[in-house]
């Protein structure tokens, strides 16, 4: 695997330092509190499921963690450092898969990956892009425009885009949405493989049972508040569903 040319910040931080530290974090949008008084930590290499009903604040929390939007109050530390400084440098250690593919549909899969690779200053973006297209089993379609791909294929290219710069923290916002069963299975396996390679993964997902089976830690949100933060091994899906729905 090639390394990015950018020297990532926090590279000297101890292995034991949590990748994410959130302290009394809140986000207000249009006078409406979307996230309220969140505090939690995520250890390096952890696979975390972020659960909650629609409107619970999962996507907003992921956007805050991805540095796309700033928190209204509270503190966010990524890789042991406060987010208020060097935001651009943090971004070289983050990867995100979102609702949208975050790709240019008129460009080929390879062109998309090479473009993003150059933005992240990956040493050899073409070689890295080809390596990742092999990884997501799309090497044969490398030169085809993304607009000719199925939803599942687009999602795999999107994962390759998120991994171009070898991020330490991967944020996945509903990545299974709209996928058929084989594509879901392939994506599950891909995320599991990344976890085994030591990546920290935060997966926002509607499917509680699937999430609890995949992840090690669960963060459950209700109306912007953190109501459960624990290891998935001890959690019952039905009990989590009851908490999510507030019943």
């Amino acid at each position, binding site marked *: 695997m090639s390394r990015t040319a950018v020297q990532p910040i926090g590279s000297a931080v101890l292995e034991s330092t949590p990748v994410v530290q959130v302290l009394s974090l809140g986000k207000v949008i249009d006078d409406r509190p979307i996230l309220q008084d969140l505090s939690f930590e995520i250890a390096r290499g952890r696979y975390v499921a972020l659960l909650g009903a629609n409107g619970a604040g999962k996507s907003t929390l992921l956007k805050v963690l991805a540095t796309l939007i700033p928190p209204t109050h509270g503190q966010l530390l990524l890789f042991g450092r406060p987010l208020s400084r060097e935001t651009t*440098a943090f971004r070289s250690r983050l990867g995100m898969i979102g609702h949208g*593919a975050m790709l*240019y549909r008129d460009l080929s899969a390879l062109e998309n990956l090479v*473009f993003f690779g150059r933005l992240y200053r990956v040493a050899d973006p073409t070689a890295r892009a080809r390596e990742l297209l092999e990884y997501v089993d799309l090497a044969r379609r490398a030169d085809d425009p993304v607009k000719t791909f199925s939803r599942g294929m687009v999602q795999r290219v999107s994962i390759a885009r998120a991994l171009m710069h070898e991020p330490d923290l991967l944020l996945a916002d509903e990545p299974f949405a709209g996928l058929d069963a084989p594509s879901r299975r392939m994506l599950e396996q891909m995320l599991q493989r990344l976890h085994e390679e030591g990546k920290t993964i935060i997966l926002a997902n509607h499917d509680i049972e699937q999430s609890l089976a995949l992840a090690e830690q669960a963060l459950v949100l209700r109306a912007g508040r953190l109501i459960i933060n624990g290891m998935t091994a001890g959690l019952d899906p039905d009990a989590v569903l009851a908490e999510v729905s507030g019943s």
Partner: protein
Amino acid sequence: MMAAFRQIVLMTGKDLRIEARGRQTISLVVVLGVLIIVVLGMGLGAGRPVTGFGATAILWVAYLFGGVLCFEKTMAVERNDDALAGLLLAPVDRGAIYAAKLLTNVILMFALAVVVTPVAILLFRFDLSAHPLGFALIMALGMIGFAAVGTLFAAAVSSTRLQGGLLAMLVFPLSLPVVIVSTQMMRRLFQEGEPLGGTGLATLLAFDVIFLVLSWIVFELVLEP
């Protein structure tokens, strides 16, 4: 600085590659520009000689409407499939994203001018022979100022449902100083025979610099992931 320059070139290259592949923006913008010139020609009586001053006014109508369409289409590329979020996630300065989008828009507007201006010259028998370079310089500076404002507001309204109409309503009044100054300069150049330069050129340059700097600064605030 070099890193930002490299990113601007990369992002502009990406935009132009997408445009070259589909020609979705330039074909629409050029067709609209030519249509406007033809409609104005029919209304004003094509074939009558038009002075540089009148030429500027007619061309500005085509450039303004073509420009708004251009700004909207180039920003729509970023909104499709949430591609803009991919850019915002990358370690790229927001100002560089603005500069790249502006550069793309200026290049496409120059392409529009290259097609539309000869059509207008043929139709109206524009006589630009006295000061062709002066004409090109004034129009280029005017277009850069217009594109500076248009690129900023295209990003601001691209997440709303109003888009086209709203963009025109916001950009046209703000671009008025550039249009007025450039038409006045053209009148002085072609009708009064004043040499190019002095306060007119300085004013136009000042508008460009102000619009560019302000837009660069506030661009981050108008971007919505």
